[in-house]
């Protein structure tokens, strides 16, 4: 028995070496997909190696460009999808750089081309270093921007603005034109940025369906929740339990640090729904662990009545307790024969809805 609070540990340990048998068709498909023409001959492979190295170099060069693009994209709050692809490229970048060093070493005394390629590589690596330095600067700037933020909070996104300005200062040494562009963008951002909030309200169905979890994900100075049942809260996130089912309008009003106010409205519908979720159509009472009993699955029922009859109409099973399942024996406890049986279910839910259904069950041993 383990401590339930260590769910992360329980799962990561249990799955650490978890294996499952794979359907052979997967390999067949993979094999078809990766089938290449003929393998290269050994004579061609020497020349091929040089080419491959160049190819890697070019790939890295383009990766470096994309990496640069990533930081710019990040700064200008480009859409998240781009970030994602850039991130994965970043990962590949690391792999590719290391790989190249690995290949390049034994190559140097073999091939004339290698000198050329090595120098290529050198430029690229320098390139990579530059990118890294920029990243480091970026981080430092972020940190300083944080402290600035507390003093000068004129815009709703002060961090964003000051970050760009300082970065611009760094870049200034290299490129004056670029600076102009960045500055312009910065101004635009300052004007455009507005105070946005987003509220989340969820009904916790597996409690009593009367409790909601509410939360504001944005950075706000103050928030006021009105739950529509006369209650309110000023917590950023929490739970609220309604005393009755029904539809409620939840209004969250939030204030930003510089006094902007915004409200958001969410509708909460608290309903108990009763249903018959599943009725098996076959049972195999042979104690193999699967489908051994006739097990009806219900949600929120208050009244339940199940009758099972054989083909002659003789009752073989009857219960009003959904927890009691039919194991394929008749009322005297003798095993029923293979064949078709009929069931009738009459049920009433907590919401006073009646559920009447009937059907047939196949019994196989």
């Amino acid at each position: 028995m383990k401590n339930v609070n260590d769910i992360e540990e329980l799962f990561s340990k249990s799955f650490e070496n978890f294996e499952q048998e794979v359907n052979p068709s997967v390999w067949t498909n993979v094999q078809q997909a990766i089938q290449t023409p003929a393998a290269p001959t050994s004579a061609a492979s020497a020349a091929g190696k040089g080419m491959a190295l160049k190819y890697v170099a070019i790939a890295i060069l383009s990766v470096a460009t994309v990496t640069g693009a990533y930081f710019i994209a990040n700064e200008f709050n480009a859409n998240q999808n781009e970030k994602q692809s850039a991130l994965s490229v970043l990962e590949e970048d690391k792999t590719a750089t290391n790989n190249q060093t690995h290949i390049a070493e034994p190559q140097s005394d073999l091939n004339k081309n290698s000198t050329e390629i090595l120098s290529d590589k050198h430029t690229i690596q320098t390139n990579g270093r530059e990118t890294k330095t920029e990243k480091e600067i970026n981080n430092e700037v972020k940190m300083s921007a944080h402290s600035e933020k507390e003093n000068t909070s004129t815009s709703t996104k002060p961090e964003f603005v000051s970050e760009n300005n300082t970065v611009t200062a760094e870049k200034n040494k290299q490129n004056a034109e670029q600076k102009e562009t960045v500055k312009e963008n910065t101004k635009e951002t300052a004007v455009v940025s507005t105070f946005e909030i987003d509220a989340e309200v969820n009904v916790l169905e597996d409690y009593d369906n009367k409790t909601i979890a509410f939360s504001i994900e944005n950075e706000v100075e103050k928030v006021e929740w009105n739950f529509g049942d006369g209650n309110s809260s000023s917590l950023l996130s929490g739970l609220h339990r309604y005393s009755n089912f029904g539809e409620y309008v939840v209004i969250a009003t939030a204030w930003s640090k510089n006094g902007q106010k915004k409200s958001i409205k969410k509708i909460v519908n608290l309903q108990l729904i009763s249903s018959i979720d599943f009725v098996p159509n076959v049972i195999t009472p042979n104690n193999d662990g699967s489908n051994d009993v006739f097990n009806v699955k219900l949600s929120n029922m208050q009244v339940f009545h199940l009758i099972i009859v054989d083909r002659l109409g003789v009752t073989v099973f009857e219960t009003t307790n959904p927890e009691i399942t039919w194991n394929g024996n008749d009322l005297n406890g003798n095993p029923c024969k293979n064949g078709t049986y009929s069931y009738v279910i009459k049920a009433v839910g907590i919401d006073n809805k009646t559920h009447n259904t009937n059907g047939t069950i196949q019994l196989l041993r």
Partner: protein
Amino acid sequence: MTDEQLVEGCVKKQALAQKALYDKYSRRMLGVCLRYASSTDEAQDILQDGFIKVFDKIEAFNAKGSLEGWIRRIMVNTALDNFRKNKKHMNQTDVDDVKYLLKADNFVVESLEAKALLKIIQTLPTGFRTVFNLYAIEGYSHKEIGVMLDVSEGTSKSQYSRARAYIQKILEKENITSR
């Protein structure tokens, strides 16, 4: 064969090496894919696409790192691609809105703990499952998950805490763990 030899063979597109590499890792990788899928079929589809990528990009593998870790990252990324693809077809339903029912009797505690846990994971809505996997098992931060799944960091956090609460409840019910 060592991993190094396997990779070398795969780079040269030797069929034998490819098969050997597949045989060595496919079972364990299916274990990874299963956690991200709602069914075995879905998991095998991810596995298949993932291995095609592995053989396609084997040149890019860094010999100093762990081969298993590299393949595993490809599998996880393939699973996420799959998730993002399906997200488009879900009419942009927020993952939070997904309603579901967990029935306690679906989870008979089996001798193999991982199998029992897998059953629980597979019952979770896709959004919950993905976030839970990435955070609890793969060990990504909420910030990273936010970028990966195109959601906010806060959404990842709240999804995770809810997924965790549900799982915890089931575990207690099933006595897989005790407090």
